[in-house]
């Protein structure tokens, strides 16, 4: 028990629980089964998107095209089932393949040309989004198999939706990747210190491509999960992903992991952002406030991280003679 108490997330988890109880005192609807259900759905969907960005932040880069990839896969997934009457499984596999390909393009160009991932993914953002619009001509696809709709909206028991299963599995897998496999450790090492990593023989090419491919896959999964939830494939899926995809890892990381990239911290960030968004809705505060709030939180988080780095640098310079 004493070990549990020492962990940061335990304390903060308590804060979250107490905060939620507090909110529910004012608005009992907050802990109603329905609201919890909605909350869990929101967390599920955001979790996958946040992981997609997190792995790129881990290697020290940014992926602006997460939403565009998610949207492209979403409409492809639905389109294949509606237009070509494809059954679910092959459609899912092709969706994953598209995500993989998009991620591969991002990673390959980034590492082979040395151009910053920010710019490459800005261009691919337009390219993938453009393909999305070109294919759909801004019209959604409606025809979706019942099984898909069921998966997106049914509950296992109580308020827990089926939809949580996949994000939870993904979170566990990501944790194993980043904490127990060499690939994951090398990614973190690369993000921490590119030169050092190359010196020890870590292949930049391998790391960057693998990271972007995984990011693309996760974005693809995110897109398909949204389709399940919405029960249709609209071209604007993914448009609003960019800010939350950064907010969760950055804010969570700042609070829980000393500013470092961390799977549990990212999950925490997702839960935090979701609870705040839900609370704002329940209190009938304008949803645009969420955006402003997220923006501020990111700035704050980043500022705190820099301050931490600064403190650390000063400490290690203590014995300098110069």
């Amino acid at each position: 028990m004493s070990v549990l108490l020492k962990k940061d997330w335990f304390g903060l988890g308590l804060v979250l629980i107490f905060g939620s109880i507090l909110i529910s005192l004012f608005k009992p609807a907050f802990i109603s089964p329905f609201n919890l259900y909605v909350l869990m759905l929101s967390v599920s969907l955001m979790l996958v998107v946040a992981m997609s960005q997190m792995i790129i932040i881990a290697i020290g880069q940014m992926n602006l095209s997460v939403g565009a990839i998610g949207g492209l896969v979403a409409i492809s997934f639905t389109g294949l089932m509606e237009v070509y009457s494809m059954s679910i499984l092959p459609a899912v596999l092709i969706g994953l393949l598209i995500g993989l390909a998009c991620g591969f393009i991002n990673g390959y160009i980034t590492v082979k040309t040395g151009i910053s991932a920010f710019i490459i993914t800005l261009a691919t953002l337009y390219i993938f989004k453009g393909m999305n619009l070109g294919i759909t001509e801004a019209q959604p696809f409606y025809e979706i198999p019942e099984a898909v709709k069921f998966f997106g909206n049914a509950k296992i028991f109580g308020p827990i939706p089926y939809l949580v299963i996949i994000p939870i599995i993904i979170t566990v897998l990501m944790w194993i990747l980043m904490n127990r496999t060499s690939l994951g450790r090398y990614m973190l090492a690369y993000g921490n210190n590119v030169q050092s990593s190359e010196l020890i023989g870590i292949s930049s090419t391998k790391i960057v491509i693998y990271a972007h491919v995984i990011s693309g896959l996760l974005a693809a999964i995110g897109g398909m999960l949204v389709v399940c939830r919405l029960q249709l494939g609209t071209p604007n899926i993914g448009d609003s992903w960019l800010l939350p995809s950064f907010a969760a890892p950055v804010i969570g990381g700042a609070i829980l992991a000393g500013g470092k990239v961390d799977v549990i911290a990212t999950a925490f960030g997702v839960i935090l952002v979701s609870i705040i968004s839900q609370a704002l809705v329940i209190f009938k505060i304008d949803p645009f406030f969420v955006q402003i709030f997220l923006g501020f939180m990111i700035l704050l988080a980043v500022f705190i991280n820099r301050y931490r780095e600064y403190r650390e640098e000063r400490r290690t310079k203590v014995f300098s003679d110069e």
Partner: protein
Amino acid sequence: MGALSPLFFMNNKIPNFVKTNQFGLLILVIVFICIFSFSTDGFTSRFNIYALSRVVALDIMIGLAMMVVILTGGLNLSLGALGVSAAMFGGWCMESMGIPISITIILVLAFGSFLGWINGFVTVRTGVHSFIVTLATMSIYFGFMTLLTEAEAFRKLPEAFTDFGSLKLFNKYISPLLIISVLTCFVLYYIFKYTDIGRKLIAAGANPDAAELSGISVDRMFIYCHMLSGFLAALAGIMLTARIGAAIPSMAGHLGFDWLLPAFLAPVLGGTLLSGGKVTVFGTMLGAILVTLINNGLYLIDVGEFWVRFFLGIILLGAVLLDRAREYFTVKNSIVS
């Protein structure tokens, strides 16, 4: 890299200007204009050229707004949100408060500079890269703007203002908005080439350490760049409002995203190095013209409005790859590496 090998033969006999990126752009622009004039009816019509001049005016302005931040080695993702926020502020001044146009314009430009200052200040003080800072401020500015205006547009702006936006000069070919943009180019060119502050800004961007050592406050210079970016973005916002005839919250897209691609593409095509330290004012102008032409051209050859974004993304990718290749070759051939 076959396309670039002719450069190796050109080294000694041909004047320097010809080898510059600007010249290549000029050729491209002329080529495109010729192609479009001959292959599509209506390209050279008064109607089309006038319409183009209004779009080019805006693209040049937002390209310049991004360019001055690229000078610092950074990026300003918030320029769309900033410009629209400033424009909405102007709409409120003119319509709800009845403030005279000329004063409103001054207020709007000041407001834009202020928002730009926030970007610069946070970037410099926290040491965080400007793209993260402006990613956050983009949401903050757009969010506040939407909140305060309740997403309502200002459609009853003073006639004098909206008339200016639809004014037609030079035998109905050119919009005065284009004149404003081109004039701005000249002013900026002058500032960066001949004034003390301009040289300092460039020095700070090109080699911050050396600049710091020679007494230039790099932090302050970077803040000035961000302020200038905000100023230009606000100016673009005013121009867009005049052109549309109303101040609409969504006129630059969600979070101002619509402006980002042209704002980025114009300087990059124009030869502004993404690593910072270099400005190419007329290059950016030509780049903006090229972007507009390509956009217009794609539209005219019936590519379908939905695929335009795709092609622009490809062009952006091509442009940065070319920028990279250009850097690589200049380093290989230079006397001092």
